């Protein structure tokens, strides 16, 4: 136990842990208090809107960490990570649909979209979806197994660089088309929505919402520490070696395919967890999460924040999504221009992203 503890403590220096403690206090204490305890007339009162916004950004932050792990450290640019996020979300969504019970529009034991399609019973692959434990298993296994299978073939065939990126893009696009079909059995283009409760607790209740928020915060911190452990281990140094000089790494005796496959699968699983935490907060999951544009946006978060820093990925997810929620309210027509401009500005003026810029300024 002691070596494990000491290797956890070594993940960050004193300042790093201090920042993490501040962050944890805000997420676990300040925000829940401002939402639940402070009366709504008080100017400090935090509305559901902000709890949801921050909760969403924390999920995106997990995705950004997963992306940085493979792109920043292993040099593998995925343009299909939205797929793994969505699959985790759908796995959770299936469970949440079952939790609705017969309180849907049609008062049937079936989800509304199935009644609408005139289905009489659940298709076989909905078996067991009423159990939360099985949902958890699926949240981990579905993105993980898909990524493993895809990666096994792609890395074995030594597909690299832009070719790999394009194939991941095609993969998420193909799944989007599949999920758009009503007959696929996942609600077609409407996806899943109108969730009522999770683990028996009403999702309309602020306490439930704040609980999901706090759990998300916990997973975000765990993901950060896990990624930090991976990249600071010898494994992480091998990853960066593969990124910079793959053939040298192979000729040094490393099976680079195994390394890429491991980190690729881990990254997909982290995305799945993020998706599963996202769905109960926003209350909807549909195939648009699998659109190629969504996956590209993930890469932009990481590029903006700074690749290969982890913290930068978090910052990037926060900056871009914070700006997005502001812009889509204030000037909804200009959001995509702003996103494009942001990407250009960062690429030209801050090639190392915001983190790289901060580091060069503080040096």
């Amino acid at each position: 136990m002691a070596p494990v503890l000491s290797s956890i403590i070594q993940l960050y220096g004193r300042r790093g842990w201090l920042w993490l403690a501040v962050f944890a206090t805000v997420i676990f204490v300040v925000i829940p208090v401002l939402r639940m305890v402070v009366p709504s007339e008080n100017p400090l009162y935090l509305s559901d809107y902000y709890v949801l916004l921050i909760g969403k950004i924390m999920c995106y932050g997990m995705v950004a960490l997963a992306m940085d792990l493979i792109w920043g450290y292993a040099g593998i640019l995925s343009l299909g990570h939205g797929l793994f996020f969505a699959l985790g979300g759908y796995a959770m969504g299936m469970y949440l649909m079952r939790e609705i019970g017969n309180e849907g529009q049609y008062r049937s034991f079936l989800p509304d979209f199935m009644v609408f399609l005139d289905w009489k019973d659940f298709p076989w692959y909905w078996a067991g979806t009423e159990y939360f434990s099985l949902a958890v298993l699926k949240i981990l296994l579905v993105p993980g197994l898909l990524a493993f299978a895809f990666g096994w073939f792609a890395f074995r065939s030594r597909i690299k660089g832009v070719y790999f990126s394009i194939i991941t893009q095609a993969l998420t696009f193909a799944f989007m088309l599949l999920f758009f079909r009503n007959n696929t059995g996942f609600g077609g283009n409407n996806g899943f929505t109108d969730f009522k409760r999770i683990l028996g607790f009403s999702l309309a209740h602020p306490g439930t919402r704040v609980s999901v928020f706090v759990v998300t915060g916990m997973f975000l911190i765990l993901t950060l520490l896990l990624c930090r452990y991976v990249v600071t281990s010898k494994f992480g140094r091998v990853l960066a070696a593969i990124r910079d000089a793959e053939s040298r790494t192979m000729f040094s005796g490393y099976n680079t395919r195994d390394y890429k496959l491991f980190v690729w699968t881990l990254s997909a699983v982290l995305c799945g967890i993020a998706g599963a935490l996202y769905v109960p907060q926003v209350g909807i999951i549909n195939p648009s999460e699998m659109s190629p544009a969504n996956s590209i946006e993930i890469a932009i978060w990481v590029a903006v924040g700074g690749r290969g820093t982890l913290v930068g990925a978090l910052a990037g997810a926060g900056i871009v999504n914070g700006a997005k929620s502001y812009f889509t309210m204030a000037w909804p027509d200009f959001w995509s221009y702003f996103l494009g401009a942001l990407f250009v500005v960062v690429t030209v003026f801050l090639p190392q992203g915001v983190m790289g810029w901060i580091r060069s300024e503080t040096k």
Partner: protein
Amino acid sequence: MKAAAIELDSGIESAVTADVAAPVKIDASHGVILYVEGVTVSFDGFRALNDLSFAIDTGELRCVIGPNGAGKTTMMDVITGKTRPDAGTVFLGQTIDLTKRTEYEIARLGVGRKFQKPSVFENHSVFENLELAMKGPKGVWDTLFHRRNSAEEDRIDAMLKQIHLKERMRDPAGLLSHGQKQWLEIGMLLMQEPQVLLLDEPAAGMSDEETERTAELFLSLEGKHSLVVVEHDMAFVASLARKVTVLHEGSVLVEGSMETVQNDERVIEVYLGR
């Protein structure tokens, strides 16, 4: 001062003992470590290697020379598993057929390769470069839960001294000079404790003094490792003064001492006729 610098640090020998559990034993009972037999490689009809055969003795230092396009680099690609031959076999010892192995397996079996262009991990520190190359368990779980120990640090430290990069150990390898990178890469190879070292133009881009020191280093490794040095630099080859193999159009033209080779009619024609 030079001689002292080159001398293998005796500290290395003692520190090496930790986990050297080779998965497959190399059977060099006949005194030969590497056999290349009838290897042919074609690229789009062009025969880069044409029924190439030669053998390297255990502990031998062999120089391979030849004009551009003679197949020197392709030969290394075949031995290290990067290129699969159309015909022929490459045996490490009596029993291991390298043409059926992948790059990383061949590296783990004890064949180290230095590229023509210095190939080091530019963003890693000099220390980390040596650490990554060091012989030991190299699987995913091994590195994920690896903790650096003092035996490893001593070993790396000894190598840093041997390749004269002790003061630069914390610097990213990308900041080293060309010659220093060549030395670092040689150091990385030695960290793998290879049976066979394949060195593609190791003296390229080095100053005269560095070249001289490199030659001394190789001579000091002779006997402990088998070395195959591919070079263009005739002076360097002459300073090693060992058996020379001349490649031409994908096969062996002449093999013998430097003197024999230099006086051979065909070699003169091949080199001067172009």
